[in-house]
């Protein structure tokens, strides 16, 4: 941690090599979180790079009150939410009805992707459906679920990272799981996998 504090301080002074070292340390974690939040590789790369650019710009404001990793996580979640808002706005203006239909029912998207049963099996229907279910969550719900279950952050740390109360984290976490349960029920019913759990 001390070594990291020193790296952060050097990066704050504008030393690019120190910032590069920080990027090397965190690029996989931030990419992985970005992948969870965006649902695809291309957007995840864009988001993770945007996070590091924002971090570079705002380093002067980082006072070390939170962990550097928590700070990066917060930037990732906030950037993801604002990008999603921009995309929603663009989608609203362009109004692609097909896109709307797909987002309203992930199960149908799964079926469309897997009309050929063999191909569907190869593509890993379950993975597709899990991804689709995750993308159905509201941005904050998704962030909390992902940070808790894919990145193993305790609820309290999530509250600090997202700068919201522990009570809110708990209630959003519960809502996320209930919604996932509902989304996954379609999958279990459609593919007869009720007993596979």
């Amino acid at each position, binding site marked *: 941690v001390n070594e990291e504090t020193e790296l952060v301080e050097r990066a704050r*002074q504008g030393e690019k090599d120190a910032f590069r070292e920080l*990027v090397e340390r965190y690029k996989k974690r931030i990419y992985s979180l970005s992948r969870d939040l965006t649902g695809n590789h291309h957007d995840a790369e864009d988001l993770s790079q945007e996070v590091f650019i924002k971090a570079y710009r705002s380093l002067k404001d980082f006072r070390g009150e939170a962990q550097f990793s928590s700070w990066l996580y917060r930037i990732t979640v906030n950037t993801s939410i604002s990008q999603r808002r921009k995309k929603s706005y663009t989608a609203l203006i362009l109004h692609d009805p097909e896109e709307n239909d797909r987002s309203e029912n992930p199960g149908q998207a799964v079926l469309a992707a897997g009309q050929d049963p063999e191909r569907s099996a190869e593509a890993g229907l379950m993975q597709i459906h899990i991804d689709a279910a*995750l993308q159905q969550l*509201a941005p904050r719900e998704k962030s909390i679920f992902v940070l808790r279950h894919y990145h193993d952050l305790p609820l309290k740390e999530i509250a600090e990272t997202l700068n919201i109360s522990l009570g809110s984290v708990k209630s959003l976490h519960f809502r996320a799981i209930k919604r996932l349960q509902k989304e996954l029920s379609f999958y279990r019913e459609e593919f007869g996998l009720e007993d596979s*759990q």
Partner: protein
Amino acid sequence: MSDCRKCRAMFTEALSDEFSQEQRQWFFDHINACPDCDAEYQALIRAVQTMKQRTLDEPGDAFWDTYWDRLEKKLPDRQQTGFPQRTWWQQLSGRGRFQPQLAYRFAVGVALIAVGVLIGKFYFSGSEPTPHTLVMQAKRDTSAQHVALETRTNRYLDRSKILLLGLVNFDTKNEDAYALDIPYQKQISQDLVQEADYLKDQLTEPSQQQVRELIISLEMILLQIANFENQNDLAAIEVVKSGVDETGILLKINLDMMNRQGQLPGTTTEQKKINQIHI
């Protein structure tokens, strides 16, 4: 709270395994004794376990090896990031050598400005202002103050209107409260409450009493927004929405702005008085 409700309120802690020993004991005692809670809990566990079966395709080494190179091209310059900047002297003597030409040019520039100021003082400060010019100056000043106050009042009403429209159109049942960004709304409301203090002090003339009262009514609603408790304070949002609805404050703002801009039909002095009575 019944035991079942208490148990369900602990599901999040249970699924995250963030219990105290005592809580854990109580929770599982209840789960073992209550089939309904047990069934609901098991269903939630299944959902989480299914989600945890997710695997991601890792990008290859080539992606990671070139990650920094791609990022570095997009990083802003040092000047754009607010990193500690060099002083003007450091910049002047940058790259380890003093640049006398720049210093001479700077000195000549300062000298020319000083000469200009002296000439201006010599030619234009000779005559004392007459009473007439003083009166005209005072009138101009008062008029300018009026315009500034009018602009500030309009801006205040505009910002309040946009803030309230955002809240009124927010559907607490179907939309995510985080999309509303309550901390930001609170900050704007606090700014507006401060601005209201200033405006109330300045709007003292009889013709300004109508807008002053409007600002006082608005202040009550803005204070409620400024005191929202957290991101999920949906009940408070509903209270504000019904307050806006009951007071018809948005309509009053629109009418007041139209009235002061002379857009209402027949906005003569007499008509303005009539409009004031209606509002």
